[in-house]
């Protein structure tokens, strides 16, 4: 249990005869003691390389990593006091699940009763109490994954690393396990880094989420902040299910103040911005409209319904205004058939603007509302 600091951590792979590959570029992150963070990103974004540098299986090319004030760069994996659940489970094949889980404790010569008690406790937590006496090769991949998770969680290490800890589990089990794991980690004040490409896992488990893309850290913030104030175009297009509508647009100045006209070449949608949004007229921007803040049913705008999908607890609507596609999410059922023209309103807090050239956020409606 300690704080983890990453200072300009960079990983460069230099394969012989080929160009060097930057897997992680200048990663700065400070994880507090007892905090759970998630590294979220698509495949190849550098999250696994980051994890492997923390564990010591990959050397750090530049920068430094410290845990509880202790510099890790030169330490061997065995000396770093970290526990890890591997994506490929990596259970020891000749040992039973019980011995696998108890392995680290037995090695530390923990008292017999304590080991038995802890194994039972953690097996109950992840739901593998029935398969403790079986061998890894005879249980399903989901159970192996849970056993691997148990093997990591049982250790009182300074840092817990969970690499895709729930990728093989069924949705129902996942939902339960997420809550249990979070409670387990929080109760014991454990610092943890969870690597995942699943947003729901990240949002449910982590206090803060580090969104990575193309070797860089895009934003490191709480789940709510990622949603309400995405720092750039990538985060806006990545977070949320369905993700934010993004339309190329232009800032104009109307009678009542600044407004944004979309798309840039036409004027299918014109939205007024508050006076405080000091934006020069003619500025090209990406307009982000969060689907949950498009209120269908009443409002000044009109759109044609293309698809109306009721998902059991919410409605996903594909709308079109003069050929401009928009996605909207409504909490209840929406009474509209495809082809019908419906009125809708854009809630001010659902408006985001991003710089066209750099992709950085320049305006958040939610910030104005707050």
């Amino acid at each position: 249990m300690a704080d983890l600091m990453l200072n300009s951590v960079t990983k460069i792979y230099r394969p012989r005869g080929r160009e060097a590959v930057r897997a992680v570029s200048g990663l700065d992150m400070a994880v507090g003691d007892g905090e759970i963070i998630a590294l979220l990103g698509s495949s190849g974004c550098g999250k696994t390389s980051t994890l492997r540098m923390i564990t010591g299986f990959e050397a750090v090319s530049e920068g430094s990593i410290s845990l509880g004030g202790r510099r890790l760069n030169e330490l061997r994996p065995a000396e770093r006091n970290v526990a890890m659940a591997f994506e490929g489970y990596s259970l020891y094949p000749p040992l039973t699940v019980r011995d696998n889980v108890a392995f680290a404790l037995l090695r530390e010569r923990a008292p017999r009763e304590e080991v038995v008690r802890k194994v039972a406790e953690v097996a109950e937590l992840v739901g593998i109490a029935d398969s403790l006496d079986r061998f890894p090769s005879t249980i399903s991949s989901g159970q192996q994954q849970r056993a691997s998770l148990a093997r990591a969680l049982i250790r009182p290490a300074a840092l817990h690393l969970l690499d895709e800890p729930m990728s093989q589990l069924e949705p129902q089990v996942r939902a339960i396990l997420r809550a249990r794991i979070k409670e387990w980690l929080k109760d014991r004040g454990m610092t943890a880094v969870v690597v995942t490409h699943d947003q729901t896992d990240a949002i449910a488990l982590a206090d803060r989420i580090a969104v990575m893309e193309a070797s860089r850290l895009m934003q490191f913030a709480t789940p709510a902040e990622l949603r309400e104030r995405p720092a750039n175009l990538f985060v806006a297009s990545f977070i949320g299910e369905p993700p934010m509508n993004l339309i190329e647009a232009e800032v104009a100045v109307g009678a009542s103040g600044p407004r944004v006209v979309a798309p840039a070449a036409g004027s299918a949608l014109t939205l007024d911005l508050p006076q405080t949004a000091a934006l020069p007229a003619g500025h090209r921007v990406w307009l982000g409209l969060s689907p949950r803040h498009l209120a269908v049913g009443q409002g000044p705008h009109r759109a044609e319904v293309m698809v109306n999908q009721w998902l059991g607890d919410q409605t996903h609507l594909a709308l079109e205004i003069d050929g401009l596609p928009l996605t909207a999410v409504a909490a209840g059922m929406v009474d509209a058939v495809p082809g019908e023209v419906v009125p809708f309103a854009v809630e001010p807090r659902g408006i985001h603007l991003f710089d066209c050239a750099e992709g950085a956020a320049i305006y958040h409606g939610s910030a104005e509302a707050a």
Partner: protein
Amino acid sequence: MQHTSWHWRLFKGICLALISLFFLFPILWVLLMSFQTNEDILRVPPSPFFTPTLDNYRALIAGELTGAGSTLKIAYMKNIWNSFVLSACSVLLSLLLGVPAAYAFARYRFRLGENIAFTLLSFRFAPPLLVLLPLLLYFQDLGLYDTYFGLIWVYQLITLPLILWIVRGYFEDVSPDIEHAYRIDGHSWLRSFLKIAVPLARPGIAAAALLAFIFAWNNFVFALILGSSDVQPVTVGALAFITASGIQYGQIAAGLVLSVIPTFVLALVMQRYLVEGLSLGAVKG
């Protein structure tokens, strides 16, 4: 439609018996020959019926070859012992050098790594006769001629590449994360190699060791040139049966049977690993 009727099973049984007989016949014939006198063997037409005799084995074990009226001293049992010493020591040395090397080639990418691995494999390409003459000259200068050590060293050309390349494949199949998990639990690199990597690759190591042993056991030309009768293995020793007074077929057969026993026993003992190993290699992952 399933062929499970009794005549299908019978047909299958007969086919299998015929195929086995076809392949086992030479071995069976040699076994029968080893219990016959030279006269019985050479009669025309040949017959499977004869009075069995243990004279051939007796002569080999006593080390006295009795031909047409003369007696010849041979050291066949010594040759078998030499074969065993040479093959076993070669394989042990190759395991000691080859298994860690195979692990390094499988796990780490380093400068010239592939080139070194390929060079080691290329030892198997060169015909032994190509290197024998220079080797003989060097060995005589270095005092390695006619020593176990010299022969074991040369046998590395046979056993080391074999073990290195087979075992490397097995290490590549073992997930490195299992070792990572072990190391993160507080163990050194060496312990994770010895306690995790080697046991998991054991079927492959056993299979490679057995194959290497058989290859070493069957080697003829290195020992023929680089050693005298003191260190020569059974393959060279069998030449003694071609005497001035004729070829001693019965004793050759008995010698063959004796020389096959050690590899046969070893293969039986290691069969469990061997089958497991061969099938593991075929189905990756």
